[in-house]
């Protein structure tokens, strides 16, 4: 609960303002000493340990290159990034980067100077030890760890003065299919989720058991609130931005009607009927928003199902994406009981609250008089508009709209009581009526275990629809909550498109849902994930992975839609071979283990299962990390080389494309010199000098600037008052003012004054 409580605290806007002044580093702390904390990292960047524990200097990122190979629904992404150590010391770097939530990270390659290292998968603790020993030996070493399900960090030891480091990470992912449109999202921004917004807590909780032991930043709890966004960093903000280029090979497997991106302009070359090569119109773009790519089949060519396989160690792994036929159900709108839960905690203040309100008002408008509804709002307190669900008549709706319009964002985020209240069902056995809980929040969930238990035990006939508000909703949590609540997750990130974005939610709420989805596996096949299969809402496909001993027999999918049964059968032998399916299966199995924690599996069994699967499939997970160690020590013992060298010798087979062209080189050189203030903060930790544990305690800032602020505020008031007084005098003498303009008015005004 303590994290929950701290969220409440952190989200209070007034406090946040005051907190800015809470250290000797004034609101411009970032600008002053150039350091950031891990939580302030907004996009992938290499962090160099500074002399303040837990604070880092961001190394200038030269360029990033994303290579995506899309084969049907299977996506292989290779992300290459290059950094330069701007200091004249041997440093250790920590590099944080976002990835899609279900990305299966399996490869790490590092080039530091002229060294090429490839990573191996190890148990997290073991990897940590291997890395630490190599670092102490002066060997170059790298370590990739999962910090959150969608945030990974790489640590790099012994980066030489002025050296350039290239990091290559590969992961397996699958494309999403939604209403017939395929898409993929490449996250370029760790949105404020990782600044100390409420969402920092829940995922940290989830892994704290591990982090407590392995955390490279032992004092992560002390990370201070953000003072200035790194993007506003004053010295060469443009330069420090991450330029990214994309090179995407798309083999859709069907005739393409359209390739588009709503985030970036595209150039499509080598376009074929079913394949294309895609680059960005602007070449390299700053990493300020996620990259989203969508592709659509020609209506006639749209496949109803795609089946892919990969053989690995004598077994076959399959991925099936099946689009059930759209079953139109005419005139069969079932009455609903809808409970709207809206988060008005402090973290929602501003645009988020407006979005949430707008979305909820729209949803209220869609209720029919025969429906029942209720509205619950919560921060660290909670109110139910009506004691129990009421008819959606004009009077009740008007009252609800007033209630919603008057909501103000403030306070902490105590979600559990609100969720419990929303799940109280007075009419559990009423199968005629649909009961839906719509949860509108930014996901400031403090204690997900409790919430999951509440969901598991108390769901009944209710279905949970989570709506993620704002630029950084905790998508990971809300997706899982929706899955466990057998509803959907809707993402609302654009205040100007609330109507458009809520359409998906309304479609899910109002259209019949396919239930009792089941898969019948042929003999020898097993381990299908997700398990159990979720209910299907309008426009959603069935996506599942499974393992089989041999490619024989049929796979049968079945489901029920408004009493009618749908079945579809595939022969396993029809599956097309594609690389990466096994990795996807491994990742799904890990996710399955993690989820079963909330349905009663013991923690030991969960850990055992996750660990075994991750090691088998070479995947980074909560319990496993990739570690790479160079055999030869790189740092000369004792002495510090004083010349700068930018070594860019690369092994064959590394296609950095444009990244390593002359332009990139020029950019790299431009960043060679950082301001002195930044340089002062770099501490060649664990390399040459005393390790920090034995050295001086760094002291926190111990002054506020309230007196200064007060003086400034009072000064403004005094100035404003003086201005106002002068204004008044002028207004008072206004009658005299035109005196110089014309004689007639002079006369009249003089007269009138007399």
């Amino acid at each position, binding site marked *: 609960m303590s994290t929950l409580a*701290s969220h409440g605290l952190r989200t209070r806007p007034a406090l946040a303002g*005051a907190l800015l002044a809470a250290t000797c580093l004034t609101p411009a702390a970032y600008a002053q000493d150039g350091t950031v904390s891990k939580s302030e990292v907004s996009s992938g960047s290499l962090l160099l340990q500074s002399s303040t524990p837990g604070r880092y200097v961001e190394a200038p990122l030269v360029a990033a290159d994303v290579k995506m190979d899309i084969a049907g629904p299977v996506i292989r992404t290779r992300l290459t990034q290059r950094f330069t150590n701007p200091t004249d010391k041997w440093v250790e770097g920590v590099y944080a980067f976002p990835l899609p939530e279900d990305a299966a990270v399996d490869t790490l390659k590092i080039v530091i100077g002229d060294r090429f290292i490839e990573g191996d998968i190890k148990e997290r603790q073991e990897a940590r030890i291997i890395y630490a020993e190599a670092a102490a030996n002066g060997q170059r070493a790298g370590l990739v760890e999962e910090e959150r399900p969608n945030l990974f960090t790489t640590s790099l030891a012994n980066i030489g003065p002025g050296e350039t480091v290239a990091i290559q990470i590969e992961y397996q992912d699958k494309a999403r299919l939604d209403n017939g449109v395929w898409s993929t999202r490449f996250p370029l921004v760790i949105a404020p989720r990782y600044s100390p917004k409420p969402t920092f807590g829940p995922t940290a909780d989830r892994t704290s058991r591990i982090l407590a032991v392995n955390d490279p930043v032992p004092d992560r709890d002390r990370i201070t609130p953000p003072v200035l966004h790194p993007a506003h960093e004053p010295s060469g903000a443009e330069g420090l931005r991450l330029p990214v280029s994309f090179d995407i090979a798309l083999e859709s497997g069907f005739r393409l009607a359209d390739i588009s991106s709503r985030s970036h302009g595209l150039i499509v070359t080598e376009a074929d009927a079913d394949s294309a090569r895609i680059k960005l119109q602007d070449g390299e773009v700053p990493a300020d928003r996620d990259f989203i790519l969508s592709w659509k089949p020609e209506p006639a060519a749209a496949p109803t199902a795609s089946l892919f396989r990969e053989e690995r160690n004598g077994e076959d792994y399959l991925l099936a994406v099946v689009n059930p036929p759209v079953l139109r159900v005419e005139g069969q709108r079932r009455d609903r009981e809808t409970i709207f839960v809206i988060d008005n905690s402090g973290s929602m203040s501003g645009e988020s609250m407006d979005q949430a309100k707008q979305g909820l008002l729209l949803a209220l408008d869609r209720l029919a008089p025969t429906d029942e509804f209720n509205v619950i709002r919560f921060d660290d307190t909670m109110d139910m508009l009506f004691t129990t669900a009421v008819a959606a008549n004009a009077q009740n709706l008007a009252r609800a709209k007033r209630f919603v319009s008057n909501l103000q964002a403030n306070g902490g985020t105590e979600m559990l009581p609100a969720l419990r209240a929303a799940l109280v069902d007075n009419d559990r056995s009423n199968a005629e009526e649909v009961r839906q809980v719509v949860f509108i929040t930014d996901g400031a969930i403090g204690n997900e275990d409790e919430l999951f238990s509440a969901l598991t035990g108390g769901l009944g006939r209710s279905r949970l629809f989570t709506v993620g508000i704002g630029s950084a909703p905790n998508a990971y949590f809300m997706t899982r909550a929706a899955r466990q609540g057998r509803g959907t997750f809707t993402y609302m990130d654009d205040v100007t498109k609330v109507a458009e974005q809520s359409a998906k939610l309304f479609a899910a709420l109002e259209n019949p849902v396919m239930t009792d989805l089941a898969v019948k596996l042929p003999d020898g096949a097993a381990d299908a994930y997700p398990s159990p299969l979720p209910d299907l809402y309008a426009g959603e496909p069935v996506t599942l992975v499974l393992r089989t001993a041999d490619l024989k027999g049929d796979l049968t999918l079945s489901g029920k839609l408004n009493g009618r049964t749908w079945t579809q059968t595939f022969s396993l032998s029809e599956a097309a071979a594609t690389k990466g399916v096994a990795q996807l299966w491994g990742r799904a199995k890990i996710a399955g283990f993690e989820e079963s924690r909330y349905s009663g599996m013991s923690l030991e069994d969960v850990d055992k299962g996750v660990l075994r699967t991750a090691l088998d499939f070479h995947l980074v997970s909560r319990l496993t990390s990739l570690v790479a160690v160079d055999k030869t020590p790189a740092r000369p013992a004792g002495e510090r080389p004083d010349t700068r060298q930018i070594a860019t010798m690369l092994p064959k087979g590394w296609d950095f494309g444009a990244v390593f062209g002359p332009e990139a080189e020029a950019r790299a050189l431009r960043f060679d010199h950082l301001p002195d203030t930044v340089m002062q903060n770099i501490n060649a930790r664990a390399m040459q000098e005393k390790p920090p544990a034995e050295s*001086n305690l760094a002291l926190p800032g111990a002054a506020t600037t309230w007196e200064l*602020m007060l003086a400034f*505020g009072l000064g403004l008031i005094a100035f*404003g008052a003086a201005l106002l007084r002068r204004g008044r005098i002028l207004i008072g003498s206004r009658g005299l003012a035109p005196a110089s303009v014309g004689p007639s008015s002079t006369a009249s005004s003089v007269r009138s004054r007399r």
Partner: protein
Amino acid sequence: MKPTDISTRSLSALALLVAGALIAAQALYIPAKAQVAQVLMSSAWERQLSTGDPARPWPWADFSPTARLSFPAQNKTVLALTDAAGESLAFGPTLMAASARPGERGVAVFAAHRDTHFAFLKDVKPGDTVTIETTDGRHTFSVTGSDIVRWDDSNIVPHDNGPPRIALVTCWPLEAKTPGPMRYVVWAGLREGG
């Protein structure tokens, strides 16, 4: 003078007044919060003493008071908390997580703002008494001297296995209004039999 000029002028004057009032209120909020937090913490401290369980000063707080520091010569008592998050200094003196516990071997480091909770440090002289109560018991220290150090070169090695000492840290210079890199450290050693 045209009327539009006058209204522009009074409008900007009003804007200045409002902005000034907001900034002043924001500024006053800092010491006010520091005071209120101490009041709330002291009632939490009493609850904690009577029940023996950690008590939160306010429902959404993520800490409970760790120690009570008394300075008899200055007639001051402040409640300290453990460094849990970056904002803890706003509420009271903070026992730094990396430091020793008061009364244990090594240095217990308490940091607080020079313009709120540790404003009185300027009056603390060698020989003055500092009493620290924790849930483990009560220790009395004598002030031995003071240091002015850079924040990143403090010479404080918390776990040096030396005799139990405390270091009270605030910003230097004490009267300055703007932040700086220097820190003022008041040292105190455990009194015999304390």
